[in-house]
């Protein structure tokens, strides 16, 4: 079971993720590789958090935003997904079916949360013109420091935005988490554990798509072949 204190701490992490992504801080502490480990530590199971973070990260490897293209908040989704993954695994009693289901469930929730959080943010974005109007009005009234304060206050807004969304998503997903425990003993779901092996192929697709047309196929092939040879040689 997850405590309120843990949920609050994870929500703050969600807020930090939002600041990292939305304010151009971009220290990359929003990436699932890092947040997975932190969420795992906060929930007392760093290993599970780290494993899920790594698997989820593989999907996002080639997901990049260029020329201001919009992406869903898949990174906040990663925080929520990791929390649900760790909690479900801890309460599963090592049941193979629930363990298998946990990856599928957490990835699915993470992506859906990302889509919803992205949509909520777009609503804010579509109404954010008032910031420009307000700051221009303040400049005309020579209240320059207020414009600066308005800008800085938006950092706090992003922190709060991410934290509140993370909190709401974790709280509302918990009942579903409990229901999934009812799937224990279902042999058919055990094979879902292989998702951890198959999901990274999606990441390869995105990365190859990113490299396409950049004329670096030789280096790609070199990396691939050297690794295959080394793996075979070293057993």
């Amino acid at each position, binding site marked *: 079971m997850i405590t309120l204190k843990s949920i609050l701490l994870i929500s703050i992490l969600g807020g930090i993720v939002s600041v990292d992504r939305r304010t*151009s801080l971009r220290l990359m*502490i929003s990436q699932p590789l890092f947040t997975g480990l932190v969420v795992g530590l906060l929930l007392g199971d760093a290993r599970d958090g780290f494993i899920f973070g790594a698997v989820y990260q*593989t999907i996002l490897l080639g997901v990049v935003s260029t020329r201001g293209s919009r992406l869903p908040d898949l990174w906040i989704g990663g925080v929520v997904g990791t929390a649900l993954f760790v909690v479900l695994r801890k309460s599963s009693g090592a049941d193979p079916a629930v363990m298998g289901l946990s990856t*599928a469930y957490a990835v699915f929730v993470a992506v859906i949360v990302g889509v919803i959080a992205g949509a909520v943010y777009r609503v804010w974005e579509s109404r954010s013109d008032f910031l420009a109007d307000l700051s221009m009005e303040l400049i005309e009234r020579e209240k320059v420091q207020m414009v600066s304060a308005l*800008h800085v206050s938006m950092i706090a807004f992003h922190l709060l935005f991410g934290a509140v969304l993370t909190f709401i998503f974790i709280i509302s997903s918990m009942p579903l988490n409990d229901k999934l425990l009812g799937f224990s003993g279902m042999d058919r779901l055990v094979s879902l554990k292989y998702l951890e*092996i198959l999901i990274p192929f999606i990441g390869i697709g995105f990365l190859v798509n990113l490299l396409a047309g950049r004329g670096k196929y*030789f280096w790609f092939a070199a990396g*691939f*072949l050297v690794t295959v040879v080394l793996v075979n040689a070293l057993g």
Partner: protein
Amino acid sequence: MKNRSKEDTFPIWRLFFIEASRNSKLIDGIGFFHAVMPFLKAKKNGGNLRGVVDGEAAVRNLDYFNCNPMLAPFVIARIGTLENDIAGRIGRRTDKRSASESSSKSPDSANRSGEGGAIEGAQLGSDYFAKLARYKNSLSSSLTSVGDYFFEIVLVPLSMTLGTILALKGLYVGVVIFLALYNFYHFRLRIGSFNLGLEGSGGSGRNVLQRLVPEHRFLEGLLAFTVGVFSAIVFVRGYNAGRGRFVIVGLITVALVLLLRKKLSFTFTIILLFLALSTYLVV
């Protein structure tokens, strides 16, 4: 060595939150204004970065701004420095004309020539500042194209892929390597581009990148090599877990990503393939 006081040290943290107040009207204009403010204060207060802001300069600089945030510090430093240079130049020219005319005429005509100098200064100023605004926009555009290429296409995928390779092997050090590699270049570009802007060197976007990260072509090759390594590891893992079956599923998945990305967004591609893979495993 000169001791730097609080008053003449640029508050670097302002360069890190440019997109915080993003909106569709000015894009990152408020963030730009917030970052360039210390320069406008210096203009008004004889070099003091923490005084009052020049009112006209404030109105001028709260404008549309859209630039890659990692290289935006270059624009901020250039525009901030040029604002002050232009103001100084106009002031000197206006003073010179007033002085030369007042020395040869009566006190009354000297007053009139003072006004003439001010008008000339204002015209000169509006010309210069219009050019400065155009320079800001073209510079931002060229830096965005270079910044997007280096950060989004090369650095982020490279550092993430390296970190993930290690993480898939269960090594926690993957997180450290990922963050260290990324942030090494991240800080080098953010702070470095700001310093280049202050020096007035750098030129176009491509030159800024070339000066700060001369090895960017090598990093692009390294990314391709790393992706190759990552792909091989994933395929070997697939082969070990499900033999040829998983390798074929993997190949189909990669092909589907390439096909779907031509028509669908990242999100739909992920959801569709994720559901397809889950269904395959259960059924």
